[in-house]
């Protein structure tokens, strides 16, 4: 009898490896290690085959293993966390074995190879797949620029720096479905005429790095990358948030300090070692195979007017059912946090939510009806970023949190622009004074002025958006910033 146990690093943090070891002692059982479905609040989630498809036992402690299979499992198709989701990019999550080439199939790559490169770009443009790394630029237009730029060498680079705290969708692809990323990159290479590619992975993801390296080796051995003479390598980051910004990433890939480059020239024209370079987020690349298989029109039929397709949202912080929720754009924050996330954990009271990582605004309860799509978020003064949703409870001190955001910026600034490099430190100092209960009206005014200076005088979005969470915290929770 087959027993499916995830080998995702979060599932293992919840005890999946220990559960697997316990199963090794049972003779009749064949253990299959799969990816995780991303319902981390249910991990370790152990599954078996039933006439109704896969069914699971959730939160299995190793001690339960000897008697587990005598109990009745719950069909996955009936679990409410999954039934309302629309899974395409994460269709394989929890289903397949990450290292199995046969289960992956590379169907989209085979199809793309039979297509004229321009036709691929036309489908991508029709799909209106906007980048999932944060800036939301249409991938098809970026690819076209690189294709149209004449050069002896072109590169395809995947941004797997996933720096925004509160996000883990890239990690799930790296560990759980690495062939999907490889396939998306290979399709891009075929379309734009690139022969070399890199995946820049943050060092915080050792399991993802190992799996991706193995997957590239298997795919190369199987001759899958050979046809286009596409050579793919992994480059490991070194713990710098700014290296998620595309030009800093390229500098880092060249082995230098991760300093942001001014744009233009855009990487699509002059990128890695000054050559035309397509750089996209992991989830963006991982969505490409579906666009090729199902067509651009299919992708454009999902979502809202200007935000097409699905978005893998990542629930984190103070939420009962934390995990990955892939849905078409257009659901509200409230639906996601309560409908999928099950609301607040026992004993915790909602205070605020932050979408889009440490550069995202702090939203109070009154903004929970906001629809999740790029334009609605801009309208209410926020960003979607990489789709991370962090919920804060009543015990959160907004001044302390604001201080943390400025400390983060001060530590992670590349240092090129004075307002970002120095302003963040000064802002942190002001917030320390306020935290001590000594803040004056003048301090708050100065903090605001500093924020405006950072917004106007910063080359990239780190300095440009870092004031947002602080300013919105003051806007919505101003009483906490008063002198005590």
């Amino acid at each position: 009898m087959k027993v499916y146990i995830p080998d995702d690093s979060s599932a293992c943090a919840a005890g999946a490896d220990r559960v697997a070891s316990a199963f090794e002692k049972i003779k009749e059982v064949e253990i299959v290690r799969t990816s995780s479905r991303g319902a981390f609040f249910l991990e370790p989630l152990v599954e078996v085959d039933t006439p109704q498809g896969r069914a699971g036992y959730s939160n299995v402690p190793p001690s339960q293993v000897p008697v587990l299979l005598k109990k009745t499992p719950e069909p996955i198709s009936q679990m409410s966390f999954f039934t309302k989701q629309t899974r395409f990019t994460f269709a394989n999550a929890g289903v397949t074995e990450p290292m199995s080439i046969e289960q992956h199939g590379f169907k989209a790559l085979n199809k793309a190879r039979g297509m004229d490169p321009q036709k691929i770009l036309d489908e991508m443009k029709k799909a209106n797949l906007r980048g999932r790394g944060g800036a939301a630029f249409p991938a098809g237009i970026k690819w076209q620029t690189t294709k149209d730029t004449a050069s002896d060498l072109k590169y395809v680079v995947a941004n797997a720096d996933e720096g925004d705290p509160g996000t883990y969708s890239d990690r799930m692809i790296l560990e759980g479905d690495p062939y999907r990323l490889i396939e998306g990159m290979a399709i891009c290479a075929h379309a734009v005429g690139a022969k070399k590619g890199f995946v820049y992975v943050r060092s915080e993801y050792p399991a993802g790095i190992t799996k991706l390296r193995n997957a590239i080796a298997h795919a190369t051995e199987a001759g899958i990358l050979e046809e286009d003479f596409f050579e793919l390598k992994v480059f490991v980051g070194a713990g710098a948030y700014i290296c998620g910004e595309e030009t800093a990433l390229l500098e880092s890939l060249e082995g230098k300090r991760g300093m942001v480059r001014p744009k233009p020239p855009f990487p699509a024209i002059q990128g890695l070692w000054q050559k035309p370079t397509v750089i996209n987020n992991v989830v963006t690349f991982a969505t490409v195979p579906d666009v090729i298989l199902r067509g651009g029109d299919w992708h454009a039929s999902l979502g809202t007017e200007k935000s097409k397709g699905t978005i893998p949202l990542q629930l984190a912080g103070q939420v009962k059912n934390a995990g990955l929720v892939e849905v078409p754009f257009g659901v509200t924050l409230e639906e996601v946090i309560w409908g999928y996330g099950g609301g607040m954990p026992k004993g915790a009271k909602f205070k605020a939510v932050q979408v889009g990582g440490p550069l995202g605004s702090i939203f109070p309860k009154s903004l929970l009806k906001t629809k999740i799509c790029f334009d609605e978020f801009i309208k209410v003064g926020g960003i979607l970023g990489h789709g991370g949703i962090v919920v804060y409870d009543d015990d959160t001190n907004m001044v302390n949190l604001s201080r943390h955001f400025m400390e983060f910026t001060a530590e992670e600034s590349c240092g090129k622009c004075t307002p970002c490099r120095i302003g963040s430190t000064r802002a942190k100092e002001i917030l320390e004074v306020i935290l001590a209960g000594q803040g004056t009206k003048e301090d708050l005014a100065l903090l605001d002025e500093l924020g405006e200076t950072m917004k106007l005088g910063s080359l990239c979005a780190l300095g440009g958006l870092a004031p947002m969470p602080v300013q919105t915290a003051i806007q919505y929770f101003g009483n906490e910033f008063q002198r005590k």
Partner: protein
Amino acid sequence: MPDLAPILQECRSSQPNILATLQKIQEVFGYVPRDSVPEIAHALGVTDSDVAGVLSFYHDLRTEPPGRHVIRFCLGDSCLATHCEKSLAALEKKLGCKLGGTSKDKRFTIEKVYCLGNCALSPSLMVDHDVHGRFTSGNVMSLLKDYK
């Protein structure tokens, strides 16, 4: 001082990568001795300041030997939301060293990290390559017992 010659031999090329070279050195020796900057620069055909600049830029790169195990304690948004700071305080107290420091017995170095991608199970920390989550200030020490 560690003998860097074999690694530097391997990393020499027409397009040397300073960061990858320093990562390689750290992988083998656990840190990059500051005094070795001129030797590295000479081997790669770049200036001392090129190497020193990269060495000081990246949080991962250390210039002091770490303890036997490295704890990377997450202070990312999701872990803050789950009040990880209490557990950090407990950990620092028990180990007798602050974030960035090494315990007296050289068993652990605690470093700060912003997110381990384990946010659904916050708070999180990583010991060497193992991710741990869902701990409290009361039980965080018990995660460390198997790391001798």
